[in-house]
C-alpha cells in the first residue's frame, strides 16, 4: 500500500480512492468516494472517520459546500502535475468553507510542489502520487521540500497575513 506523507512523516495509507464512476456498495475499509457518489448517496454515508470525499480538478467544491463541515477527510485529484486547478480548490475548501479535517493531494504531483501544496491547505500527500514512475522516488528528506522557503510574500492558508503586514 502506498505511503502517505502526513505531519511531516511517512505513515501507512489505509485509505482507498474509489474510481470517479464508482457505483455499488462500499468496501469494508476507509475510502474516499467520488463527489458524485457522495451527492447521490450522502444520506447513507454516515461515518466521517472512514468515509471521505474526493474531487477531481474539474469539480467544484461549491457543489457540496453545505456538507463540508460534516466531513473529516477530503482529497483533491491532480490529473497531471501541470494542472494547477487543485491549488485553487484547496484554498476554497480551507478558506471559504473553513474545512479543518485532513485535506489530501492525490493523483499526479511531484515533490517540488509540496511547498505550494501545503501553503494552499493540503496537509496529506499520497506518496504514490509523489513518485512518477517505478524508479522515481523522492531523493531528499520530504520535510525539506515542505520547508523550501522561509519567506513568503502572499497570504495563504498557512499564513493569513501577507508579508507587507509583517515587515
Amino acid at each position: 500500500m502506498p505511503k502517505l506523507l502526513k505531519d511531516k512523516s511517512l505513515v501507512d495509507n489505509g485509505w482507498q480512492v474509489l474510481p470517479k464512476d464508482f457505483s455499488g456498495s462500499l468496501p469494508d475499509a476507509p475510502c474516499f468516494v467520488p463527489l458524485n457518489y457522495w451527492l447521490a448517496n450522502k444520506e447513507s454515508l454516515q461515518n466521517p472517520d472512514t468515509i471521505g470525499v474526493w474531487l477531481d480538478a474539474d469539480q467544484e467544491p461549491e457543489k457540496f459546500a453545505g456538507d463540508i463541515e460534516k466531513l473529516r477527510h477530503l482529497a483533491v485529484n491532480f490529473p497531471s502535475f501541470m494542472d494547477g486547478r487543485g491549488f485553487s480548490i484547496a484554498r476554497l475548501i480551507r478558506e471559504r468553507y473553513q474545512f479543518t479535517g485532513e485535506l489530501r493531494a492525490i493523483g499526479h504531483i511531484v515533490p517540488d510542489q509540496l511547498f505550494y501544496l501545503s501553503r494552499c491547505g493540503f496537509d496529506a500527500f499520497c506518496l504514490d502520487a509523489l513518485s512518477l514512475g517505478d524508479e522515481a522516488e523522492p531523493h531528499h528528506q520530504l520535510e525539506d521540500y515542505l520547508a523550501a522557503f522561509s519567506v513568503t510574500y502572499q497570504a495563504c492558508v498557512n499564513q493569513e497575513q501577507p508579508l507587507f503586514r509583517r515587515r
Partner: protein
Amino acid sequence: MYIYDQHDKTLIGERVAQYRRQTDDYLAGKIPDAVFLPLRLQNGLYVQRLAPMLRINIPYGMVSATQLRALAGITRKYDKGYAHFTTRQNIQLNWPQLEEVPDILAELAAVEMQGIQSSGSCIRNVTSDEFAGISADEIVDPRPWCEIIRQWSTLHPEFAFLPRKFKIAVSGSKSDRAAIQVHDIGLQVLKNADDEVGFKVLVGGGLGRSPAIGEVIKDFLPAKHLLTYLEAILRVYNRYGRRDNKYKARIKILLKAWTAEVFADKVEQEWLQQIDSPSTLTDEVIAHAEAFFTSPSYESVDVASCEAALQQLASEQIAFGKWRDRNVVTHKVAGYCAVHLSLKPTGVAPGDVTDSQLEAIADLAERYSFDEVRVTHHQNLVLGDVKLSDLPELWQAAKQLGFATPSIGTLVDMICCPGGDFCSLANAKSIPVAEAIQRRFDDLDYLYDLGDIKLNISGCMNACGHHHVGNIGILGVDKKGEEFYQVQLGGSALDDASLGKVLGPSFYAREIPDVLESILNIYVDRRIEGETFLDTHRRIGTAPFKEFIYAKAA
C-alpha cells in the same frame, strides 16, 4: 528603484539553492525531463535551437548601473559576451550552459536580480511605461504598483501551474506606452473625481495565435483592493481556463467564450468573497512602496541659456539636431530630459548589446542619469533623468559607443524577435529581414519625412515581435519548408490599439524591402497634411495597398 530588504534577499537566496538542487537532481537523472521542464522555465531557462536561453527579469524595465555591470560580467563569464533586450523589458542570454545556470542565478541574486517566473505557465514579469515617474502626462507613477504586484505574484503558491503564461502591464499616464490593451491583464492607474487612486482593469488582451484586444471589466477599482481583485481574476482563470489545448488556454479565449460581462460578473462574485481580507493594501504599504520611487535630487538648470546653447550646437552640427529631435524626450522637470540609447544600429540584431557596451551604459547612467536605466518595449534603453546641459557630451559619448542612431520611432527602429537564428519555434529568420530593411532605408531625411511608423517583426505566430500591433507587421511563415513573410498593415499598441490586417499572400525575404517601399510610396502619395502612416491607412484601408502591390507582382 526598489531595494531588497532581508526578506527579499532571503527569498531569492533560497530560490537559488532550490534551483541548484533541482539542477543537480536533474543531471543525476533523478528528475525526469517532463518534471524538470516547468522547474527550469520558472527560473527563466528555455532550451533553444542551439543552446539553452536564459531570460532574466528586469522588473518593469528599471535596471541600475550596478546590475548592468553584473550582467556584463555574466555574459563574459558564462556566455559569448552579448545579451538581448526583449520587448518585455527583460534581458536574455543566448548561450548559457544548463549546468552553470545556478551559478548565474547566484551572481544575479547578489545584485538583486532573478529569473523567477520569466517563462512558464505562471504570472510573468510585470511590465510598464519606460517613462514612468518622468513623463509630463503621468497621472500616477505606476512603479510602486508594479512592485506590489511583483511581490504578490512571486512564488504565488496558487498560480504556479496556470493553463498558460500570464502577463500583466501597468500604465499610469494619459497615453498608454505599456501596451496594456494587449496583455492578459492591463491596468490603468488613474484618479477618480474625488482624487482617489484606483485602476481601470482590462482583461483578455494578448498576441500570439488568435490575437485579441483586452476588454474593460472594471472602470474603477479603488487602489487598496488591487491584490484581492487580481487574485479573483487569477482564480477564475486558473479554475476555468481551458487546459485541453495549449493554443486555446490563454485568458483571452475564456473571455471570448464567456463574454466580458459574464467573466466580469464571475470575478466580481469571487472578489466579493475575499474583499477586505488581509491582502487588502494599507496606506502604510502603499506609502512604503511609493517611497522607493521618489524623484532624484534634480539640480536647478538655467533652461533659457541651456536651450540657447543647444540650439546653437544644432545649427552648427545638423547631426546633433537630428539626434535631439528623434532620440531625446521631454521631461516633467524643467531642465531635464530623457535620452534614448538606440539598440538599432544597422547590422546589429535589434536589442543586442555586448558585455563592454553594458558596462559603457552603466558608466553613462552613473555619469548622467542617477545610476538608473530603463528598458523600453521597443528594445531600446532610456536614460531617464539627463540634465539638458549634459546633452552635447552625452551625444558624443553615445555616438562613440554606437547608441546614437537617430532613428527612434522611425521605420528602422523596429521590434524584432530572435527568430530562426536562435529560436527553435521559428518558421523563419527575422534578424536578417530587419537588417535588409535597415540597409534599404538608410536615408534619414526620408525616414524623418515618413515620421512615426512602428514596424514589428516576428519569426512565427507566437508573436514575440508583436507583429499584430505594428503599423506594419511582418510575420515569418513556413510554406512547404520554405521561409516566407506575411505583411500586415494597421496595427497599433497605443491608446487606439488595433490588430493589423493581412495584406495578401506572403513574400520571399528578398522581396520584403521592395514591398515595404511600395507600401511607403502609397502612403506618401495618399497622405494628407499631418497624417501618420496609421492615420492614412485607417482612412483609405488596406485595399489601395493591396491592389498596387499585387498588381505589380502579377
